[in-house]
């Protein structure tokens, strides 16, 4: 959370590169959200691009009293709706932007927009990742679970697991590497 604010401030101070990292961090989620409205993947990418550009332009006015992602999420929803209105298609839902972004991403209504081929790939990937986590040594698995499923900071994990923060960091890194290896094998890439 602090890192987002740091990045936002850097962009506000003229560092365009910092915006790249915000894109890298949130592009998947934003496209996921947009795909709920705009089914065509190419169109969805265009809308995502438009949303990020709008966000860049609006950044000097970003007050920081909501999290950056919540703010970006609202921009993405509005951009999607505008896109549908402009191409005279009706937005599938109304008043989505009033909802809390963090509660929204897994709303069941949105699942229907998945395409068969990517959902097959998703299932495979999800299974691969779960398997990779199961195969980890217990400490490493606990660390990544506390991070990804419980949303704890490294400091909190260190408290919970009674170990130094550096150990948490390297455990999580080892978990990521193991997951990465598994994902690569599903994707058919060489390791």
């Amino acid at each position: 959370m602090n890192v987002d604010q740091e990045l936002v401030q850097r962009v506000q101070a003229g560092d365009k590169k910092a915006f790249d990292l915000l894109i890298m961090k949130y592009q998947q989620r934003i496209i996921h959200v947009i795909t709920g409205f705009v089914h065509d993947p190419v169109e969805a990418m265009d809308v995502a691009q438009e949303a990020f550009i709008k966000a860049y332009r609006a950044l000097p006015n970003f007050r920081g009293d909501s999290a950056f992602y919540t703010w970006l999420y609202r921009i993405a929803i509005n951009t999607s709706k505008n896109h549908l209105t402009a191409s005279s298609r009706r937005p599938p839902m109304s008043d989505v932007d009033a909802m809390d972004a963090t509660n929204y991403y897994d709303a069941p209504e949105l699942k229907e927009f998945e395409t068969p081929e990517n959902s097959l790939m998703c299932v495979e990937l999800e299974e691969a990742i779960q398997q990779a986590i199961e195969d980890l040594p217990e400490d490493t698995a606990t660390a990544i679970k506390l991070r990804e499923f419980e949303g704890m900071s490294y400091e909190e994990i260190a408290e919970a697991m009674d170990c130094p923060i550096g150990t948490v960091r390297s455990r999580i890194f080892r978990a990521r590497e193991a997951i990465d290896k598994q994902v690569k094998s599903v994707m058919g890439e060489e390791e």
Partner: protein
Amino acid sequence: MRQVFRFCVALLVLFIPTVQAESASIELLERMSQAAKQLNYEGVFAYQSGKTFQSVRIYHRNNDGTESERLISLNGAAREVIRSNDTVTCINPDGKQINVSQRPLGRGFPSDLPRRLRSATPFYELTLEGEDRIAGKLTQRLEIKPVDSYRYGYRLWMDKETDLLLKSELIGENKEVLETFEFTDIETGIEIPDASLKAQMSGNEMVWHRTEPGEMTTQDLVAFSNWQAKWLPDGFTLVAHQNRLRANNGAHIEQRVYSDGLSSVSVFIEKMRAQHNHFHGGSHMGAVNAFGSVIHAHFVTVVGEVPAVTVEKIGAAIEYAGPESR
């Protein structure tokens, strides 16, 4: 024990020449605190801190020992705080929220202050200053200077007739005024009708949050003594201790209050639960500072109208010393 002895010596050696004056100052503070509890009054005071300027209407009634009080902000959204003997209700029409907090049972309004005031003597220099007119009333000014930089100073103006506090300034290390409360209008000794103590907002369409005193079992008490402050500014001791339960999310919160008799600091300890965010490091709201950290999978937050350095140092010195700590 040795500390107490040292303070006694300090008190004797340094304060003998001023003992008379100090004693008068402390008596004034005691009368002030009694007046605030015992009188009926209605008035408007201004609260100023930094950019904030707010006018607040206050009603206070003491009906045969039963205190009731209502504050309502006069600019912007009409926020209200209503205190009765056993609850504090905060109404925020903006956020459509009502928070109801059960007060510790049988205490009435807090201020066991008079009892504690005398213990503050070694850590502040009290001087009776001149007279001023505040809200049309003649007041006695009292200057309270801290002996170190772990607490703020105060400048207080008490009504010469009723002893009621009519103006109060919180003074920072560089003598800057951090916060001012000042009556612009006040009436005392009047009847306060029930209607004045009722919320102007109806509770419909509002979200209610309730906090209740948690059940204190002996086991809890033992568990609670596991939390300690390894460092406190000289003169700060544990003056209150309670367990609360936030009804809407089931959070159990321990509050430990440390005070030197004049300034106080609360340490809140709340078990960390998944998906909860917390803050690390310092934050502040006007002149109130807070310092947050995570200790032994608990959110530990120190809050007080003391300098940032004090809440930070206390926050860093809170320790869990219970059975599962290692």
